[in-house]
């Protein structure tokens, strides 16, 4: 995982975990790696990982069981709506980029149909 965006590291880690959940690499109810494990694999300060987990929990995507660890949500609807949100934001960004290149909606549609 490369941190090259302009975003804080914890947000990039959140996005990474969200993606893993959407593509079902992390399935509902799966145990997430511990803060320490993930900190070691990514060579990132454990406090940063902790912050990412806390934020994910606030968004209702993961939950913590005391003494057991952090788990992905079992609410499939939530993951589905996350998937839609992510797709929507990708499309939005794509459209903004294309419009900045002076493509019209028709032209964009044509390109996608290819």
């Amino acid at each position, binding site marked *: 995982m490369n*941190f*090259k965006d*302009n*975003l*804080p*590291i*914890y947000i990039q880690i959140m996005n990474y975990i969200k993606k893993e959940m959407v593509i079902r690499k992390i399935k509902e109810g799966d145990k997430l790696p511990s803060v*320490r494990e993930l*900190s*070691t694999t*990514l*060579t*990132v*300060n*454990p*406090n*940063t990982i902790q*912050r990412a987990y806390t934020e994910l929990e606030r968004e209702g995507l993961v939950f913590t069981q005391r003494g057991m660890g952090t788990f992905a949500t079992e609410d499939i609807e939530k993951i589905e709506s996350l998937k839609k949100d992510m797709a929507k934001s990708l499309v939005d960004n794509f459209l903004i980029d294309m419009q900045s290149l002076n493509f019209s909606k028709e032209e964009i549609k044509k390109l996608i149909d290819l």
Partner: protein
Amino acid sequence: MEDIIKIKGITKTYRNKRALDSLSLNIKKGGVIGILGPNGSGKTTLIKILTGLLRPNKGEVLIDGKTPGTYTKSIVSYLPDRNFLYEWMNIEDAIGFFKDFYEDFDEDKAINLLEFMGLNKGMKIKELSKGMHEKLNLSLVLSRNAKVYILDEPIAGVDPVARDQILDAIVKNYNEESTMIITTHLVRDMENLFDDVAFLRGGTIELIGNAETLREEKGMQIDDLYKEIFG
């Protein structure tokens, strides 16, 4: 949270060169702080004052409430930017030495770390390469359960494989209770380790803050910010 290190307006001059210029800095207990700056910005001078190798001309330094001395040396684990082990030693002697002098030294941890680093006890200090020195010294320093760790340029001049091992060892062995101070000018490689960063220029703090907050505010990584400040 309480501050483990309090630095109040320290100035340090060598002959006519001013290395530190009324620098003040408080470091809280727990967390990793990166001291960033190019060569000659005063990083090493600051570190040497904290470890008691140098004394400021003006100002005051308190570590856990005490000025640098015998007590602070017993709670500070220091990795200098050079090989500080005695030349006659082999690795086993060095482990024995740390065990004898530092009550907080954990021998099992040292043995595990050395194994992770691919070093064995019989190796002689004199015969180690630069990268191996760095790995050995870091293993010894991290094997202490110290209140404060001070690592001066831990990855300078080592090959990429050794660099990754060193970074892994730092992350693996860092515990939330202790405070870690790391100086570096290799910001890209190390920035993900820091909670806070302080940019040092001309012997004073140019900018200090939480790393994530700075990324958010400035919309760039710490490495880019470093380039913007010192470029």
